[in-house]
């Protein structure tokens, strides 16, 4: 096995340290904590910010047994990634606080017409209401033929705004669904 950085870090939790250093560190060693990432699961991901595409490793704890949810304990740059070589910028370095963030939206909500507050709404009801909005708007405004009588089958009253971290696969589902509705105003961060 090649002595990679992570293997070394793991091994250094054991007695190998004493022999490498050549003097007795038993006392210090007894007080050293086991590394936080020693028993984590490593998941390879890509930083969601700029387009350098730095490889990141997300460390999670949790044995993946039933009813146990993995917990993120550390995020670091992937030293194997040919572009970033383990480095991360101030934004990439704070990714753990993006994953574990108490400002995250945790439940669907709706603001009713004329209202001054958000109300909770169940997912199923949200899906039903949104689908009804889409169908109503589409049926009222769908354009089958243009002024010259040519077939156009287009919808100019519903717009899609896609984000910069939407994956390619998600974006393909957007093209499939939105174009099938006839959506013309299909745009993305890519434009701006």
């Amino acid at each position, binding site marked *: 096995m090649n002595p990679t950085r992570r293997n070394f870090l793991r091994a250094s939790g054991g007695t190998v340290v004493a022999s490498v250093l050549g003097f007795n560190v038993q006392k210090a060693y007894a007080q050293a904590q086991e590394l936080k990432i020693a028993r984590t699961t490593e998941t*390879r991901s890509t930083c969601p910010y700029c387009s350098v595409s730095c490889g990141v490793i997300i460390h999670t704890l949790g044995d993946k047994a039933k009813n146990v949810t993995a917990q993120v304990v550390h995020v670091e740059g992937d030293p194997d990634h040919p572009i970033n070589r383990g480095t991360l910028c101030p934004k990439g370095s704070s990714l753990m606080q993006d994953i574990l963030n108490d400002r995250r939206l945790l439940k669907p909500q709706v603001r009713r017409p004329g209202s001054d507050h958000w109300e909770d709404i169940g997912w199923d009801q949200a899906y039903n209401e949104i689908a009804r909005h889409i169908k109503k*708007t589409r049926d009222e405004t769908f354009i089958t033929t243009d002024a010259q009588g040519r077939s156009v089958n287009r919808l100019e009253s519903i717009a899609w*705004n896609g984000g910069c971290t939407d994956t390619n696969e998600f974006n393909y589902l957007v093209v499939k669904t939105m*174009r099938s509705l006839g959506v013309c105003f299909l745009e993305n961060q890519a434009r701006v």
Partner: protein
Amino acid sequence: MTNGWIDIKNTDMMLIMGGNPAENHPCGFKWPIEAKRQRNAKMIVVDPRFTRTAAVADLFLQIRAGSDIAFLGGVIHYALENGRVAKEYLVNYTNAAFVIREGFKLPEDGLYSGFDPSAQTYNKATWNYQESGGKAAPTENTPPLLPPNVDFDPALENPRCVYQLLKQQYSRYTPEMVERITGIPKDQFLKAADLFTSIRKDGDTKQVATIIYAVGWTQHTFGSQIIRTAAMLQLLLGNVGRAGGGVNALRGHSNIQGATDMAGIFDNLPGYLKVPTPADGNFAGWMKRITPTASKPKDWESWNYWSNTPKFAVSLLKSMYGAAATKENDWAYAYLPKVDREYSWAHIWDDMYRGNVKGLLAFGMNGVAIGPNSQKNIDALKKADWLVVCDLYPEETSSFWQSPGVPPEEKKSIQTEVYRLPGAGFAEKDGTFVNSARWLQWKWAAVPPPGDAKLDQEILTRIFLKVRELYQKEGGKFPDPIVNLAWNYTDPENPSLAEVAKELNGRALGDVTDPATQQVIKAGQQLPGFAFLRDDGSTASGNWLWCGSWTEAGALIQRRGTDDPSGLGIYPNWGWSWPMNRRVLYNRASCDLNGKPWDSGRRQVWWNEAQKRWVGNDVPDFKPDSQPKDHMGPFIMNPEGVGRLFVPLGGMADGPFPEHYEPFESPIANPLHPSQSNNPVVKKFSTNLDKYGTSAEGYAIVCTTYRLTEHYHYWTKNNPMNVELVPEMFVEIPVELANELGIIGGEPVKVTSARATYHAKAMVTRRIRPMTIDGKKVYQIGLPIHQGYRGIQEDAGRVPRSIANLLSPTVTDPNAYTPEFKGFLVKLEKA
């Protein structure tokens, strides 16, 4: 990027302009530094501010925002005057020798031939090549096409050949003119032009230069033409296709390259297929319009790879509609919307403000903060019937009805129903992003979404399936594409992105045989590459450009091979790069006419005479068995087979060569042609909220916007660590301007444009100096953009609830439809 991040280490010369990678792409910036350290490469940085990129440059020039074409045109002029061009490359790999038809006129007065002032568009019939043999040009009443046989003069002496016209066009871009427009003193400009073109000194063909840019170039009313000017300079110097060369967009978001490939924009379908128009009539008519035919000198060859367009389009429709797309029903052509107007970003908000767009679905896209002209976007949302936002944090768009300036009583009159749905973050989702080097890299999900949040694909899918159910039960307008959309995922309510990735690559629907090798792909198998796509319905592929990414060999996008045998930073087994894992586009151009690399030290691909094939360290971006003597052009996606110094016909909306126009709001009249100061085909808007300012009205300061290293757009204002690093936004103000206005660093100031006022603190700096533009003293100021009205600091009332893009104008580039976020006019006051 034509090249890639690591490839920058192979360069000898860098021009970094319209971008600030040291601060905005810090982990990619190690590669320019590597080039400096290992190759002694030189770095020229041109920017309105002395940035941290500028701090490590060999030469820094401060430029006025929006004058980039004048600078680059000046460098082209210098290269031509001093013989600093790659002659063999220029003659054989570009359209320099092509002859342009009679009647074409250069824009000495600011206008090319064919301008129609009433429609504000060009009739582009004269923007064309001359047919070989001096045959009459096509008559004006037929739709103009490129001639199949082009008249050309390899001696480059014909006064109407592209090379001579190019010389004439940029002869006006003298160092004196560059100084008047850009504010860069003549001697400094000459130093930069000499340094950049020094790679071609004394006929050297070994050295390579790269050009690196970002949204400092794209966000102008002539942004596409700035990038064209850079591409032309690189073609003149023979730098495209070569390791360490190319035209390289840094890109500021993790998947906007992928979103463009996947047609997240109104005018494309996946793989850059142009959307159908009402005039196309049927599938054949659509194909006829969007499939180019070769146009070249008689004795040259052109692969014209877009001639395969029908294969890509049929495979896409088979992927989308499966069995419902048949030859008999024109591959379900009727299902696609037909468009003949612009539906770009700025138009969404304009049409919503006018009451035409009634519903908006925004997934991870904060249109209010992104702007431009944020107040118009807010007021547009007030008029919508409904809004669905899927995001991670409370953000400005879903909270538009709570924005500053909306009094409680107005809320009652805002009838928009707003759904705010909790989506999943990057760590909770798998799938691929495409980086700026065109690499597709799979990421794996580490944790489930928190609370009741859901995966975005599940949210979108369940909305769609509910709509479909309603159409199945109740009928309605044109339900066919909705009910017939192929949706054969194992879990139809929550499609696995791995399944979608395989669908994007595509598979054989019947047995497909490669005529050259007799290799058979059996029905149901994943296709090995886009050469196997067919236009008879026997293949399906969601995006032809990514065909080859998930084959029978497995998910190439998941590869993690760390070997780099050539040492050029190609990493052929890491992830997968479109097209067909080629890491440098147009790499045939890295060799001379005989197929021998220009530089034996940086061998990418080459012609192997024994094998009669192109081989190499990279995958040849070329017809593999095309012999050098056949003179096939390296630019296989152009019908000419060569790079375009001159863009014929409809390629560009505003001219075959770039011309300097002033930003829409400018402190001066264009010194080249004061009577035609702006881009004549610029797209401006006309609602009561679309106001544009002039210096006469007191808007005399040039304002530009940018990002900080510590923040990302409007997300990290929710992240405690980033907020701690930079807790509040500021306005960068030149010391001299601050002194004139009596502003002290740290004081609150307000910046006002014709549209709105923005509040932040003053940061008095020497990083931006006063400039002399056409004899006039001009100040520039800079705004980092990361403030909004929802965030840790905003919610705590510690910073102004104010968005930088309240200031920016809705006025767009006629080619890419990108708004002019850079270089608009403002006034500055103490708050």
